């Protein structure tokens, strides 16, 4: 546990000192602030535009950050051979990978927190009435980021190419949001094989719509009864992807 925490702390500091991380968070902050300009065009729906634009921007910049950082998490050290320095010490590969992933998530969450603070400030300034839904929407966005981070890490170990890893991860992101359409397709198609494929894809691909509370904001009578189960599912899916990454990493020859 001590090893994991040490590596996580090192990764957190490494990411926070990284210029790309700074640029992304800074860019996110600028975009959220600039949303005030867009809000002015929103007529009588200014608060709605500000809310949606901010929540989407927070998620988008967190996604970009986690994609780039997770893909390079172990890949960079493997390519520069600096990973030997860590693994020759009494640090297991599992501890190394879990620590790196935990540190990365801590860095991305802190970036999200900063952006959310600014966004919440702007909303207060615009007279928005906060409910529990706002932090819950952010929490579920963070859950999406957790899943996508683990998927990106797996692809980086699997493909050994940053560009293809990022492409696969973005593809997974899109598929995850398209899962309800995949299910609909499966229900409508008459042929058995495509039906089965659609059904399998629907259950195997992480369903990111479970975590899309910011899109269901005005849906009448929505209770969020699925949210606790979705949170557990998100953790289970991330753990499964991490197990797959660990299996790949433990079998990797350096």
């Amino acid at each position, binding site marked *: 546990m001590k090893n994991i925490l040490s590596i996580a702390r090192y990764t957190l500091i490494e990411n926070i000192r990284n210029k790309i991380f700074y640029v992304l968070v800074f860019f996110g902050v600028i975009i959220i602030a600039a949303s005030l300009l*867009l809000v*002015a*065009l*929103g*007529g*009588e*729906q*200014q608060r*709605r*535009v500000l809310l*949606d*634009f901010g929540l*989407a921007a927070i998620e988008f910049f967190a996604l970009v950050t986690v994609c780039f950082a997770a893909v390079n998490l172990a890949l960079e050290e493997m390519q520069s051979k600096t990973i030997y320095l860590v*693994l020759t010490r*009494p*640090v*297991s*590969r*599992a501890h190394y990978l879990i620590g790196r992933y935990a540190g990365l998530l801590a860095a991305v969450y802190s970036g999200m927190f900063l952006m959310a603070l600014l966004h919440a400030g702007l909303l207060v300034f615009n*007279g928005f009435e906060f409910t529990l839904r706002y932090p819950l929407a952010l929490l579920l966005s963070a859950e999406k980021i957790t899943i996508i981070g683990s998927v990106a890490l797996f692809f980086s170990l699997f493909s050994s190419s940053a560009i293809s890893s990022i492409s696969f991860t973005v593809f997974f*992101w*899109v598929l*995850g*949001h*398209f899962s*309800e*359409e995949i299910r*609909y397709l499966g229900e409508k198609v008459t042929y058995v094989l495509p039906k089965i494929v659609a059904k399998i894809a629907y*259950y*195997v691909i992480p*369903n*990111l*719509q*479970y975590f*899309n509370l*910011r*899109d*269901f*904001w*005005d*849906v*009448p*009578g*929505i209770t969020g*009864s*699925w949210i606790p*189960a*979705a949170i*557990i*599912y998100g953790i*289970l*899916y991330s*753990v*499964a992807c991490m*197990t*797959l990454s*660990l*299996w790949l990493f*433990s*079998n990797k020859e350096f």
Partner: protein
Amino acid sequence: MNYRLSWLYVVFAFSLAILFNVFVVSKRFSNPFPPAGVSPITEYAVFDLVGIVSGTRRLFSDIAWIQLLQYYGRADKPVSLEEEIETSWDVVHFFSGLRLWKDKHEDEEHCDEHGCSHAGHHHIEDNKDPAEYKRLLDHCRRIVALDPFFNYVYLYGAGALAWNLERTDEAIELLKHGISELDTYHANFGNDVNEPYWRINLYLSAILYRKSGEFLKMTGVLEKAVRLPECPALVKSILANIYQKDGKPAQSLKLWIDIYESGDTSYHSHAAEKIAELKNIMGL
């Protein structure tokens, strides 16, 4: 320290996540949005699809909303003086038989000279062609295709179509679309949709009264509508103009003050002008 992880752990971890999804989460969750369809405005079809596949339907419906405001004129476009007179013209005609635009339209022959047309007792100016903004309904449908629960669009779109553009049939079509979306949602999920359902029906009845020429009843329904949250300033301004033409400046003033204080800057200057005008009329 480096032992090889068995692939059985991987199978176990994925099985657990997938089984939890199949038997627990997917049973509790139903996507309230209907499956993605083709955008009513084809040039935005790809753009809207990006919003759907990236899980940002609301954000893209907001962008579509801004595009609607840009299409329909400026976002801060208040009802012009001519439009104000026209929107309240029917009521004035109904109550007192007054004829507006007397200087220009002494008779129908004179109207023919400068290209005006008469549809029933409705007077339509040539510079306010009902065919103007002919894609307004499509823009509204595009927004609600992305987010069917963006109820304000139904109210705003129907108000603009019925009172500003005199296309009551399209306004009714839009409101009926909203009602059918809520009906489908209620049938599938059983959730309470009374509030938006009632609000849309209220607007529908106001437009139906307008269409059938029952302006007294229409005014009564609009009075209820402006008391509800999410009532567009556009609808409030229509009622305020009706009050003014009906010789009720105090009620009109109250509504304009309400519009002015609503926090929406788009009607500020126009509302301020109207407040000053009405105060002047009332000798305040």
